[in-house]
């Protein structure tokens, strides 16, 4: 395949149809991702309704400052990704590569902050099965909150990690001149995945960190 030139696969009529097929494919995948996380939110809803007091206690033990910063970091990474896709559509290779690495860096910052947060949780004995301790009547119910907290944030962090790996790959491809204004579907599709990981976090944040602050 020539550099930056679109090769139309035999099953497609033209570039537009091929691009639409890729977009349709990623959207179907993203719908399954929503279902995947949705099940965790369903478990969350049931548990919170059954144990509202324990969830209020658990929610107050999470770090709103770190999580709030992380939300801003992720929203900013979404901006740099959107601008990267735009740069790809204009054929500005240097801007594209720069914006993709910016997104990777912001993604890594998110994971680093998450790591600091997990370490704090461990030191405060909030990690279930790893010395969880919450003296008081509803200890096992607060522990249930933290099971969900680590499950949901952990699975989300895994998605961030996969996103970082994909964007780094796309960045290397971009610096080798593999994309052009007529062909940048991989950038576009990776961007859609990254935005969805961002969208999921937008629901994780209020669910786990804003339960009961007042």
């Amino acid at each position, binding site marked *: 395949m020539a550099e930056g030139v679109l090769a139309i696969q035999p099953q497609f009529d033209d570039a537009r149809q091929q691009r639409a097929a890729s*977009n349709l494919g990623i959207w179907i995948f993203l719908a399954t991702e929503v279902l995947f996380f949705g099940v965790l939110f369903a478990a969350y809803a049931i548990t919170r309704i059954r144990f509202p007091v324990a969830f209020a206690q658990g929610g107050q033990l999470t770090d709103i400052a770190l999580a709030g910063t992380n939300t801003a970091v992720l929203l900013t990474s979404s901006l740099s990704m959107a601008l990267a896709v735009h740069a790809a559509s204009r054929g500005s290779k240097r801007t594209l590569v720069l914006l993709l690495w910016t997104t990777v860096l912001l993604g890594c910052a998110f994971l680093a902050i998450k790591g600091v947060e997990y370490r704090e949780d461990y030191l405060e004995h909030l990690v279930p099965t790893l010395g969880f301790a919450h003296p008081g009547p509803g200890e096992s119910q607060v522990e249930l909150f933290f099971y969900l907290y680590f499950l949901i944030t952990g699975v989300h962090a895994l998605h961030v990690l996969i996103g970082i790996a994909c964007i780094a790959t796309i960045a290397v491809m971009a610096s080798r001149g593999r994309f052009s204004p007529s062909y940048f579907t991989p950038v576009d599709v990776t961007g859609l995945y990254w935005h969805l990981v961002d969208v999921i976090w937008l629901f994780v944040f209020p669910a786990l960190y804003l339960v009961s602050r007042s």
Partner: protein
Amino acid sequence: MQLPARPQVYLLVWVGLLALLALTILAAYARLGAYGTALHFTIAATQAALVMLFSMHLASAHPLMRAIALIGFIGIAILVLLTLLDVLTR
């Protein structure tokens, strides 16, 4: 091939998202009771809509894409609703 949105749109969306983030954090400290939870998730849904409509280009996408983007959310809404009908009426 041109994208539907201009860079300025992404910047505006980003500013809007950060403003909503500040609002939802402030709301967490106001004594809103059960309304607080409703407000948090309304803000989250608004933020998600902004990202999906503009950053993910659903605003200008083919209706089929929009339908598929919604399928996951509708599926989850049905799942949560029916589960809660059971849990809340035991």
